[in-house]
Every structure is written in C-alpha cells, then in structure tokens.
C-alpha cells in the first residue's frame, strides 16, 4: 500500500513553515513561559513553577470566570442551534436556485460583517434608548427601559447573532446530503410530516448538530468584543481577563497561563469536531 509521495507535496512546505514559525512556536512559547518563574533570555537560572496555575485555582475570580465563559458558550450554542436548524433545513431543501442563492447571501453577509460592527448594531437595538426599549416605552408597553443590555442576556443575544451563520452552514451541508426520498417514503407509509422529520431527518442530521455545536461553542468561548461591550462590567469572560492581564498589569506569564486553560478547552473541542467530520466522511465513502 505504499504510494509514492508526489512532488506536489512540496507545495505544503510554505504553509508548513509558516504555521510552525508563527502558530505552533508562539503557542509553545506561551505555554512554556506560563510555567517558568522568569524570562530565560534575561535570567539564565529560571526554573519551572506551577505558581501561575496555582493562582488561577486559588482565586475564585478566575474559576468563576471560566465557568461563566462556559455557561455563556453553552447557552449561545443551544440558542444558535434552535434558530439555526430551521434556517439550515430551509436552505438545504430550497428548490429554487435564485431563492437558494439569496438565502445563502442573507446568511453569509452578516458573517462577513465585522464583530465590532455587529456588536454596535446590537447596542443600538438593546440599549436603554435603543430600538426595542424606545418602541416599548413609546407605545406605553413598558414604563421604564427593560434591562436588555449590560448583562448576560444582551451578551448572549449578540453572540447568537454573530455565530448562528456558522451553525446554519454546517447544518445545511449535512441536511443537504440526506436523501429527501427517505422522508417521503416515511410519509407515504403514513407518518405525519412531523414524525417523518423527527424519526428520519433529525437523527440523520445528528453529526451536523454535533459539528455545528462544537464550532459555535468554540467560537463563543473565545469572544472578547461582544462580552466586553454588551456585558458591561457584569460579564467577565476568560478572554477579557486574559487581555486585562496584558493591558493593565503586563503579566504575560499569567496571561499565558489563563490562555493555556482556554487553549486546552478549545483543543478538546477541535479534536472532537475533526472526529465528527472524519466519521461523517468515512460513512459517506461507504455509502
């Protein structure tokens, strides 16, 4: 089974070099320095220490922030799935070519708009003088502005909006490959459309649900701008604390330790995501 490596393989060399130098090496340096008690370029006698990690465990601020980051990530993922699934199904089953193209544009255009810009859009909608509160107060439906922002609610709403396109695209890819005739067969055998969906399409789209959820969760726990601007000071996520360590105290080793914690969670998600995609591809090869 030894196939000769083709000379074309050398085309991976620039990417390989680039990623080793500017991706793997920096992450390695970050991890290494987070476990040293000084800068080895300035002091030759540095030793390994666990103090940065001990500090994370000792101070409830960091543990709570990790938990709240994971919680916001989980809620965002769940809502993105609930909103993303119907849209992905519609996109995947759209027969009209023009309709499909327009819907795809409607999903991708927000995705290609910057995170800062989309967060600003949500501030104009959810702030005290924003569209929703101005309308509610103006119509007399609320006597005072509702607290839609500067809390977890506003953060999650904006995060869902930012990451739902990733969910839709992942799911639509999987749903599109499910043979529609399976659903039709179920219905011609007497199943209601809802039952046909629940017992045929939904189980077959599980890998897409899993892959999309892992992707959105990984993106949501890394968010910085949105929790910062939408959460006020009420929401402290891990990425915010990491940047704070650099900007406010210039403690790169401790920022690196917090970074390693976030990185470990993310790497687990990436491996799981690749595993789901890999087994999906293998099953298609068999089919």
């Amino acid at each position, binding site marked *: 089974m030894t196939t000769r490596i083709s000379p074309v393989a050398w085309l991976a060399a620039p990417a390989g070099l680039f990623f080793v130098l500017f991706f793997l090496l920096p992450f390695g340096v970050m991890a290494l320095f987070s476990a040293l008690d000084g800068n080895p370029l300035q002091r030759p006698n540095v030793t390994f220490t666990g103090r940065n990690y001990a500090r994370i465990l000792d101070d409830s601020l960091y543990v709570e922030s990790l938990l709240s980051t994971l919680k916001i990530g989980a809620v965002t993922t769940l809502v993105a799935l609930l909103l993303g699934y119907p849209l992905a199904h519609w996109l995947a089953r759209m027969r009209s070519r023009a309709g499909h193209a327009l819907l795809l544009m409607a999903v991708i255009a927000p995705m290609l708009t910057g995170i800062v810009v989309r967060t600003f859009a949500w*501030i104009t909608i959810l702030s005290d003088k924003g569209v929703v509160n101005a309308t509610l107060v103006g119509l007399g439906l609320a006597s005072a502005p509702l607290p839609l922002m500067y809390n977890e609610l506003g953060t999650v709403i904006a995060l869902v909006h930012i990451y739902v396109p990733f969910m839709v695209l992942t799911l639509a890819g999987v749903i599109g490959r499910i043979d529609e005739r399976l659903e039709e067969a179920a219905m011609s055998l007497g199943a209601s459309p809802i039952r046909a969906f629940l017992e045929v399409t939904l189980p077959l789209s599980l890998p897409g649900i899993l892959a999309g959820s892992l992707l959105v969760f990984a993106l949501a726990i890394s968010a910085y701008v949105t929790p910062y601007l939408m959460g006020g000071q009420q929401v402290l996520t891990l990425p915010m604390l990491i940047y704070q360590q650099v900007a406010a105290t210039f403690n790169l080793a401790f920022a690196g330790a917090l970074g390693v914690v976030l990185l470990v969670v993310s790497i687990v998600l990436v491996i799981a995501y690749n595993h789901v995609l890999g087994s999906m591809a293998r099953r298609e090869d068999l089919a």
Partner: protein
Amino acid sequence: MARGTLGRRVYLAANGAILFFLLAPLAVVAVFALNPTPFIQFPPVGVTTRWFQKFFASPEFMNSLWLSLQVAGAVVVLATFIGAAAALALARGRLPGSRVLTALFLAPLMLPAILTGLALFQVFQLLGLGRPTWALVIGHTLVAVPYVMRTTLAVLSDFDRRIEEAAAILGASPGRIFFEVTLPIIRPGVIAGGIFAFIVSFDQFPISLFLVTPNRETLPVVLFNYMKFDLDGAIAAASMVSILLALAVVVLIDRLVGLRATMRI
C-alpha cells in the same frame, strides 16, 4: 415537510422570523447612520449625511481605514499563495499524515484568535521586534489561510481527475498539466479564497488588539476604542461602510464563482 399547509405556514413564518433576526441589525445601522442626533435615538428624527462626512473627514478613521486596506491587501497575496499551494499538496500530494496537516492548517478557524494574538505578541516582545505592521499581516494571514484552503479544497474535490489523466496520456508534461489543466480549473476556488482572505483581514479584531500600536491602529480597533466612550453616528456611518463592503464581497463571490461552490453545500 411540505404537506400540511398549516405546518408549512408555521415553518415559513419561523424561518422568516429567524431571517429577520439575522438581517434587521444590519438595516438598523443604516437608520442610525442617517439620523442627525449625536446619540442613539429612536425613532429617527431626520436624514443627514453629516456622519458620513465626519467619518471620511476624520484623519483618525481615514488612517486606520488605509492601514486596514493595506494589511488586507498584503494578507490576500500571502494567504492565497500559502493556502492554495497547501490545498493542492493535501489533495494531490499523497502526503502521509495529510489529515493531521489539514487539521493544523484549519485550526486557526476554531482556536481562540485572542490567544493567537497573545502568543504572537509574546514572541515578538521576546525577540525585541516590538509590533511592526508585518506582524499584523502575519497574524491575519494565519486566520485567512483556512478560508483559502477550504475554498480551494472544495473545488479540488469536485474536479474530475480524468481530465488530468487524459492530458497525461496525450503526452503533456506534469508542469504543463499543472499550468494548463489544474490551475485554470481551481482558479475560481482560489479567487473566492482570496476575497474571503481580504474580508477576514479587514474585519479581524482580536489578533490586531495585541499587535497594533496607539498611533497605528486598524479600523476595527479604532471603532472599538471609540465605542467605549462615544456612540455617535460616526460609528454607525463607519459600520455602514463595513456592511456595504461585506455585501459587495458576497455578491462578488456569488457572481465570480457561486457562493454554493465555495461553501460546500
């Protein structure tokens, strides 16, 4: 799903509402970009272009816009070359461990960009290089390469290998096959990848946060810092410019290659 008319109506209404949720925020920005009050006010009280004038007249905004465009231009060149070459190698090179390499090259999509920024910042500090503009280009290229790879791989996997084999049987050299058969066929995927690379770099925030200096900031960083203190229409006007650019990119990719082909749907 199309049988019961009531069920169908609920299905379409739900999807309409979700689509509204997705698109309305972009439309709302336009309202505030044209509303003359210097703070958020709804309903709008009039129409003005003063915020667009303020945006385009402000040296702070214009310098950052120019820097963002320059960085994005460099990223397009670098990421397109690196990403398309790697995609070809992975699809055609019979490389051992190509699955691991693919996962590595796509990793910046899922790993926290804020950590990529932190790690690069730390290395540049250690080497005493500070925060040069090319550090921004490198950071953005890392997150742009996966897009180029994905669009190129998408085209490569749809591509009928027999065309290349036919050329070989007819006596074409491997080099000639590459330039006259393979390259023209994958070109749409590479172009779409390049356009994605542009917009990904133009919008990039978390990596830039670590690599900009106070007098040399990209547009998203300037917008973010401005928004911490002031929410006047200039931000809305700047946002409008960014939204229109995203729309232009989407239409451009659809016209040139078809969005469907690049998104693997």
